């Protein structure tokens, strides 16, 4: 479960990147986080992952405060950043071992998880190559594998589908569903409204740091009193 309480992030005393955000994402839910470029999606996600410090307000992950109880809270999270270019000079396997070490995953556990993930993402043959030699999509996959190797209960994914081929994208969506269905939380941002429409149990739309809407697609349609596409509703909600 993720709980955002009066969350604010102000850059340089003036720019309100995130403004008084209140959200509760319960267990068992895939939650889509939508918004135009520069709306504050990535900032919110970085706040949840503990990368940025909030200006005010609080974040709880499975009941653990991300600032007060930082390490324990971070262990609950599997975070996939929007840019998969990291540790390029490490080999895929070295990166996975590093991530598993950081999250205290035993040798036995990591072996079976890596085996499983490598199978699903078709990455087995390239694990001994340097990440530098991977394509964008393969880099995205190795980052996702590194995140899932510690089997986190809360997934926080920033634009996770970017660059994935249809098969891997399908795999990831399926894994997100499985994960939520077994009582965990999936929180992800996307630009692709189709994906949000098909995968999410609930969505939030954020615009200029403020929450413009939060609820199921049915609730949104109810809100607009019309049977229109998510795209149209999105455009209306985020109009300047």
């Amino acid at each position: 479960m993720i709980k955002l309480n009066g969350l604010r992030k102000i850059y340089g005393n003036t720019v309100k990147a995130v403004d008084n955000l209140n959200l509760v994402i319960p267990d068992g839910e895939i939650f889509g986080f939508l918004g135009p470029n520069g709306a504050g999606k990535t900032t919110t996600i970085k706040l949840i992952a503990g990368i940025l410090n909030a200006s005010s307000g609080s974040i709880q992950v499975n009941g653990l405060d991300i600032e007060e109880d930082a390490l324990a809270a971070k262990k609950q999270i599997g975070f996939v950043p929007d840019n998969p270019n990291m540790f390029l000079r490490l080999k895929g396997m070295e990166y996975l071992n590093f991530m598993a070490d950081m999250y205290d995953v035993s040798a036995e556990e990591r072996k079976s998880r890596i085996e499983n993930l490598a199978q699903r993402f078709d990455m087995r043959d390239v694990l001994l190559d340097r990440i530098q030699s991977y394509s964008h999509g393969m880099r995205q996959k190795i980052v996702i594998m590194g995140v899932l190797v510690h089997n986190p209960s809360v997934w926080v994914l920033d634009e996770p589908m970017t660059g994935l081929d249809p098969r891997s994208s399908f795999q990831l969506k399926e894994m997100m569903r499985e994960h939520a269905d077994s009582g965990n939380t999936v929180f992800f941002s996307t630009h692709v409204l189709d994906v949000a429409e098909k995968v999410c149990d609930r969505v939030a739309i954020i615009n200029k740091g403020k929450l413009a809407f939060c609820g199921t697609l049915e609730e949104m349609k109810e809100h607009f009193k019309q049977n229109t596409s998510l795209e149209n509703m999105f455009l209306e909600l985020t109009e300047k």
Partner: protein
Amino acid sequence: MKNKIILLTKTLIRNGDGLSLKGSSGFAKAAIIATFAILLPMIMIGISALVINLANALKPLGQEGIILNLGISICAAMIFVFGIFYIISTFYFSSDVENLLPLPLKPRQIVGAKFLVVTIYEYLTTAVLYLPLWLSYGIVTGSGFLYYLYGLIVFLLLPITPLAAASLIIMVIMRFTNLSKYKDAVKVIGAMLGVFLGVGINILVQSFGEGMTQEQIADLMQKGENSLAGLASGIFPTTRWGAEAMISFGELSGLFNILIYIGFSILVYMVLLWLGELLYLRGVVGMSETGSSRKKNSSFMLEKEVEQSSVVSSYFLVELKLLFRTPIYFVNCVMINFLWPIFLLLPFVIEQESRSMLQKIIPMVNNPDIVGTILIASFSLAFFLGGTNGTASTSISREGQELYIKKYLPVSYRQQLTAKVLSGFVLGVSGIIVFVACAVFLLKLSLWTAFLIILTAWLPILLTSLTGLLIDLYNPKLNWDNEQKAVKQNVNLLYNMLIGLLFAGVTWILLPFSSNLILTVIILLAVYGLLCVLLVKALFTLGVNQFGQLEV
């Protein structure tokens, strides 16, 4: 066509980042400029003095022309050696290649422009050698206006032939092999070669012409001309024409030689463009695909690859791997630790004068009465080595925009900073051990003294690693697009070097105690040990807090 080559050359130079000081802080800029302002004139004055001495010695024999022949040939040889690496990185490894290929440019236009860019870079390196040679020779021989004009033409066209040779070699190699796999290795070898060439020239200049008779000098020059320079002028005939033109500037043969020189250089450039059209594209396409085996690895056993380590040791090992595998980090953080023995001890082996000095030093360092002094000296030296090692003082900056990764890992900042100090400390101490081993081997330092040095000298390394990391925490350079900027243009390295130098000096206060060896050891360990404890405390409170505040 010509227009496009020149246009492209201008764009490439403006886009280049190797030379610009943009983005450095005011202090860093001043420091870099000051270093060059002191160092370059020193080298150039040294070369001028050498040229003047040689010219005065050879004039009575009527042989002074050899100096120009030899000097210009050495320049050409230097351009060729550096050129190999300049060419390979500008023609093939540069990131702009990917952006140029889709443009409607002919290969010969890209090659032509990139060649000119390298030529301009070469002017900067060659000028250090050529300017003093050209000017002081002219002054000593009282040459006239035409000499200086010819000299200028020779300078401007000098890089063309050796660079064309280097380009041809590289283009053929790249056409038929796939060196891109070894991109990083090539960069490191290039940097190492640069360092060794630097040391070599330094030793050569130092050992040249001191206490020799005229005949010996003439003899040596003749030999030099026959060997190294002869080889260069054999390969690059233009150097001889250029030198001849300058020597006989007043005669018709001078004019004749300079015309041949100009004509041949232009011809070489044209031939290069033609060869570029044939060879370049086939070698450069696919460069950006970094090598990977991509073969089905049936022998890949997951069990063997899975290994569990503690958080700190795993973090530390990844730091080391990145330091070793990123060429620019390897050169500035790893290699530098092991270069000092070469810089400081190698002259003893090569130079004759120093070798005889060595014979006097050996009994000295083994005199039991001065072991304490040696200890203080090595302690002080260790501060210097620790300060010049950029591992800790750039460890936050090296993270750059990826620093956020370290923020979401469930690893305490204290543990992360510990691993960072450790990487600087381990590399520094390895450097000390190599240094001591060289001293044992060359200076016949006793094992007991060696042991005492290692027993104490780790403290300066730890101390400078701690100060370096603290400085970098408070003033990290995180906005860079090129790894070079994180290390080479990082003022924190300079600050830490100053701290190292300060401590290196302060340590000599202990000299009065040096007659009592045990007391010296105890004081060194106690005083600096206490300082390290305080710095560790500072790192774990202030430093950890500061790390938490850093946001990208």
